[in-house]
């Protein structure tokens, strides 16, 4: 029932398709700007927000420095509390554990709490292959699952859908998966939520096995935490007899007190709320209350490789708040599907290539370049992941991997080498500028004049078209700054002056005429 990101084209091509979808553009722009504003307001009212961010960063760094110790402590605490701990090196191992547990209980269905880790390992497909239905119970995940769609946002997986589309999906698909939507369903949010509630309630009451992730796992107590807004998670975590939680190994926190910092950072950064509506914590098995069989699958799936990279490992601090997605100008325009990954947006662009490894496929290698390096993501990150730094670092890894893999240098390799050679000497740079200046003089005759008087060119064929199809091109200056400095002794000689260009006779004047910008 769930789609897969396999076969997604590289980012530029996938982005092009998304950019042409004006419905998608409108849905995304509306949703991201709403959530950005909410976040901005609730973060703005916290006086010690920067201190909280620093604390969050420090806690996560401590976890990463001593990860094996905290994980072993977590295992001991969980076992003492009656839970069963499983270690999974990769997706296949984790999926096998969950399938096995479901089979042992003779069930053909599980209810699921929204979880990125289970998305990452594509657990639903593995369960489906074993004849077990995995019912997503988070409203947005339900919309995605019913629509045979893919999530496009970490927190709001159906952010790309508007309510009219949701109504249509519910009417068309709900009946096939269980209780049908009422025939007179409208696109009012309350009516849509009510339809989902009716549909899901049957599943909550019937299911024997629930699957969740965890936002945090406290090593000292063995306490797992799920933070959510709808209460569907609470249903899954309390009603079924068996609970299996798939938890990335970086989710561990040393002490219960560390939750204090994280539970302040996470809701404000993610949903723009001061506090999230449902915070569920559970510690192994509580006799007579809730699931009586509790499993925890500690998932690596590439995380130790990320940990081995001193620059890249900061991505493991991520608490999946998705603030970086909501402020990213690239994400806002392309949406999450263009990233071809469970983790979209800026964090996806640094996490996915690290989890998958660079130099293996062009789609993954396109992700570190899917950013203008504007830095908005770093600014909002509650655990201060310097995403632009990691993006640049990964670009270097991509370049290195390609150089190692192929003896024939790419066009880009040659261009960068040539640029490096030219630009590492002032004499060579000057010579190149003189050639460009001659070209500029010729081109100036073909071009037109922009407001302010400078010569520009319109659409240019060939490799320059990626720039010039939509943007006019400035014509290289007939005289470079360097030449001007030499000719006029830095403007000191009488042949020129440096009054801001007002009295120069060429056409690059700065403000001689008024109103010339109108």
């Amino acid at each position: 029932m769930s789609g897969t990101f396999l076969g997604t084209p590289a980012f530029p091509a996938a982005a092009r398709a998304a950019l042409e979808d004006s419905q998608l553009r409108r849905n995304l722009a509306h949703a991201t700007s709403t959530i950005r504003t909410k976040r901005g307001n609730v973060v703005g009212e916290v006086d010690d927000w920067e201190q909280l961010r620093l604390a969050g960063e420090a806690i996560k760094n401590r976890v990463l420095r001593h990860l094996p110790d905290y994980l072993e402590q977590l295992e001991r605490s969980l076992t003492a509390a009656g839970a069963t701990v499983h270690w999974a090196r990769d997706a296949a191992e984790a999926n096998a554990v969950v399938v096995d547990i479901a089979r042992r209980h003779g069930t053909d269905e599980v209810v699921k709490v929204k979880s990125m880790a289970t998305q990452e390992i594509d657990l639903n497909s593995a369960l489906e292959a074993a004849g077990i239905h995995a019912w997503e119970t988070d409203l947005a995940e339900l919309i995605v699952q019913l629509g045979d769609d893919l999530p496009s946002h970490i927190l709001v997986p159906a952010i790309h859908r508007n309510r009219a589309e949701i109504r249509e999906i519910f009417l068309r698909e709900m009946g096939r998966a269980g209780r049908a939507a009422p025939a007179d369903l409208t696109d009012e949010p309350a009516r849509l939520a009510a339809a989902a509630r009716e549909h899901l309630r049957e599943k909550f009451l019937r299911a024997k096995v629930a699957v969740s992730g965890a936002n945090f796992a406290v090593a000292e107590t063995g306490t797992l935490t799920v933070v959510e807004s709808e209460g569907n998670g609470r249903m899954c975590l309390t009603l079924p007899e068996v609970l299996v939680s798939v938890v990335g190994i970086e989710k561990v926190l040393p002490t219960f007190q560390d939750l204090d910092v994280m539970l302040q950072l996470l809701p404000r950064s993610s949903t723009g709320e001061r506090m999230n509506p449902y915070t569920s914590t559970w510690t192994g098995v509580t006799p007579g209350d809730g699931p009586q069989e509790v499993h925890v699958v500690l998932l690596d799936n590439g995380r130790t490789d990320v940990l081995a990279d001193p620059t890249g490992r900061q991505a493991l601090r991520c608490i999946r708040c998705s603030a970086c997605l909501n402020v990213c100008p690239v994400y806002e325009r392309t949406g999450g599907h263009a990233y071809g990954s469970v983790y979209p947006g800026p964090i996806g662009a640094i996490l996915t290539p690290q989890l998958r490894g660079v130099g293996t496929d062009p789609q993954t290698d396109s992700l570190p370049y899917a950013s203008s390096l504007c830095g908005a993501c770093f600014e909002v990150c509650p655990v201060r992941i310097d995403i632009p730094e990691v993006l640049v670092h990964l670009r270097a890894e991509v370049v290195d991997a390609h150089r190692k893999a192929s003896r024939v240098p790419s066009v880009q390799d040659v261009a960068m080498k040539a640029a490096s050679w030219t630009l590492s000497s002032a004499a060579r740079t000057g010579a190149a500028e003189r050639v460009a200046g001659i070209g500029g003089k010729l081109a100036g005759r073909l071009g037109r004049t922009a407001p302010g008087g400078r010569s520009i060119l319109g659409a240019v064929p060939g490799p320059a078209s990626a720039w010039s199809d939509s943007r006019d091109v400035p014509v290289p200056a007939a005289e470079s700054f360097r030449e001007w400095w030499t000719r006029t002794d830095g403007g000191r000689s009488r042949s020129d002056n440096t009054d801001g260009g007002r009295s120069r006779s060429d056409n690059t004047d700065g403000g001689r005429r008024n109103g010339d910008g109108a």
Partner: protein
Amino acid sequence: MPIPRPRVGLMVTCLNDALFPDTGRAVVSLLRRLGVDVEFPAAQTCCGQPMVNTGYLDEAVPLVRNHLDAFAGYDAILAPSGSCAGSVRHQHGLVARRSGDPGLIRGVESAPPVYELSEYLVDVLGVVDVGAYFPHRVTYHPTCHSLRMLGVGDRPTRLLRAVRGLTLLDLPGSGECCGFGGTFAVKNSETSIAMGNDKARHVRSTGAEVLVAGDNSCLMHVGGLLSRQRSGMRVMHLAEVLAQTEPVVERRTERAADPTSVGSAVPDATTEAVR
């Protein structure tokens, strides 16, 4: 004994050198007016940011070395670009560390401090009113690297507000990236253009005549879109605006027609009427 004057090196940047020399001349003119005899170390070329941001850190090594040689002995470096100043400040160390050359690492650590133009004017010279005159409606786009990498804050707008005759109009969504992003503009040109078009739409909505920024790279991108759209809007580097002074007008009629300043040119009323 007179205190030796600090030697300030102008890092004009490769883009300004080849494509926007007026910006470099404007910086020279502005600083001379403020009593700083800025020098142009002729050995300079490019900070290496295009290589670093595309993943070619090894190719950036000779450029970093060249930068260090060119500006050796200067007390300060002044760059009319938030992006290039940011690259020198934050990326040269990265390039040097990756090269593993201890000499290069030491060189970067002991290099003269680099200032973006508005930082140099406000923090080092301590001026906000630079004596400029520019009787136009202007909107200002804070470029990402000056805003977030350097944190220049409100320095550029303080400088602009002090310009006589200038009306500064708020730009909606000003903190959002214009979509240039170096090689991003070509590698992901459709996304870059989508971002740029939204920026251009916001810029046009202000009713300004001129879009001002501290980076000609971003202005080349947004300006290229604005001129392709035949918007009639002009883009100018902050330095070019700050370099403007009141022109000496000889014709008596023009002087009399100007309500804002004696001796200046006639402010344009038609643009007001059009909007």
